[in-house]
């Protein structure tokens, strides 16, 4: 069982706290003049995304979470499971809908996704931050509309719905930011 001592704490380190893998997003030493020091640590739960603060006695060891992050290619889904492939080993891994979360709305086959494993299973999947998707449904653009005016909802081939300028039509390929869910431009 790998452990980390509090003096190895730094942002990004993955700990096993309350049975869940958690990533350090803040670490502050608190120490009275001549007394016991404590680490006040901000942790982001990699399962739930929730951020909590926890206190550790400085010098103590905390169990490391068996977490690794890698880029895998999205292949297909069979309704329950989304399949990804490691392009160096050709090994395939499946993710359930909990692990997929929002990513299902943004990915299409062949996309390189950032996949986080916990104890050998896929914990979460992040769609590429920037991607190109085809518009499958939107109201027709009105005559005379130009780039500066208004926006309308458009459904993308992956399933996500975002606001696009009025001149975008069905069949157009557009660049989107999957984190901010924003239209970036025509592809």
């Amino acid at each position, binding site marked *: 069982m790998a452990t980390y001592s*509090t*003096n190895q704490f730094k942002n990004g380190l993955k700990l096993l706290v309350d049975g869940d893998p958690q990533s350090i997003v803040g*670490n*502050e*030493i*608190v*120490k*009275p*003049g*001549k*007394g*016991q*020091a*404590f680490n*006040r640590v901000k942790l982001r739960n990699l399962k739930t995304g929730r951020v909590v*603060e*926890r*206190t*550790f*006695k*400085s*010098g*103590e060891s905390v169990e490391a979470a068996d977490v690794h992050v890698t880029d895998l290619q999205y292949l297909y889904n069979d309704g329950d499971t989304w399949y990804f492939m490691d392009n160096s080993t050709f090994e395939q891994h499946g993710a359930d809908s909990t692990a997929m979360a929002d990513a299902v709305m943004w990915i299409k086959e062949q996309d390189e996704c950032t996949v986080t494993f916990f104890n050998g299973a896929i914990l979460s999947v992040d769609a590429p931050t920037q991607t190109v998707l085809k518009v499958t449904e939107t109201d027709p653009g009105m005559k005379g509309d130009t780039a500066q005016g208004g926006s309308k909802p458009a459904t993308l081939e992956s399933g996500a719905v975002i606001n696009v300028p009025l001149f975008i039509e069905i069949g157009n390929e557009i660049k989107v930011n999957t984190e901010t869910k924003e239209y970036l431009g025509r592809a």
Partner: protein
Amino acid sequence: MVGRNWQPSISAENLRKRAQLLSATRAFFSARDVCEVQTPIVATAGNPDVHIDSIEVNLSAGAYDTERGYLNTSPEFCMKRLLAAGSGDIYQLCSAFRAGEAGCWHNPEFTILEWYRLGFSMQQLMDEVAALVSQLYGAELPLRFITWAEAWTHKGINPNDETALNQSLGAMQIDVPAGLSLSELQDLAFSFVVQPDLGEQGLCFVYHYPAEQASLARLSPDDDSVAERFELFWQGVELANGFVELVNAQEQRQRFQADNQQRLAAAKPQVREDERFLAALEAGLPECAGVAVGFDRLVALLLEQARLEDVITFNASRS
């Protein structure tokens, strides 16, 4: 991995202001006839205090008595050897090192301002610390003096009641790690519940720490349950720690041994007791009071900065 970020963490403006504060500090002591000294940064013996971890250095290539040494956690032992040798009142501005201490208000290497006054009482030394800070600030800061026990009473907490300590932390949304001793629980609650309000309106001196937290202070002649030790807080930040110094060599040796017992219990490495320091105490340390000020913290507060790295040239992640 070592980065290539060569830029300092301090701004050019703060660099100049810090220099002014350094020279104003030296002028303060010069006017009071306190002699500036420099003692070694590398020591062959360390500080066994269980809560202070030294950075070890390899001395095998030097002309030292030992192969393994330590970077000073404070210049205290050498300064007391000077006092025992008849130096009279002395002060020092130097780097001190504490392993693993990093954060907004900590850096493993930091500047300490430490001075010793012969024959001073605790009150005289607290007054002198206040005079220095007010002079550097440029105006008289309001002063408050409270005992360690009063600091808790003002918060309505009995520091010997574990339930009360736990409740006070719970009310601040601070979780408490399992298995803390009473003194560790007190340390946690003091840091999060008591300290943030200390020195809000000026300088707040907390004195008469419990005898178990005496460190190198002598116990009060009137009440041996408390030590003649004080700390200074300003804007919730701990700035200084002072003692009426323990001059009894035998008692000092016992405290070192007790410290190393605690280190053993905490599975920390033993730290060689400083025999030269103990020999100086045996030869006779004059009655004196001494204080160490976290100079970087003082500069940060004077310059209204919220992080140490804004007032030091290169913090640990850049050094």
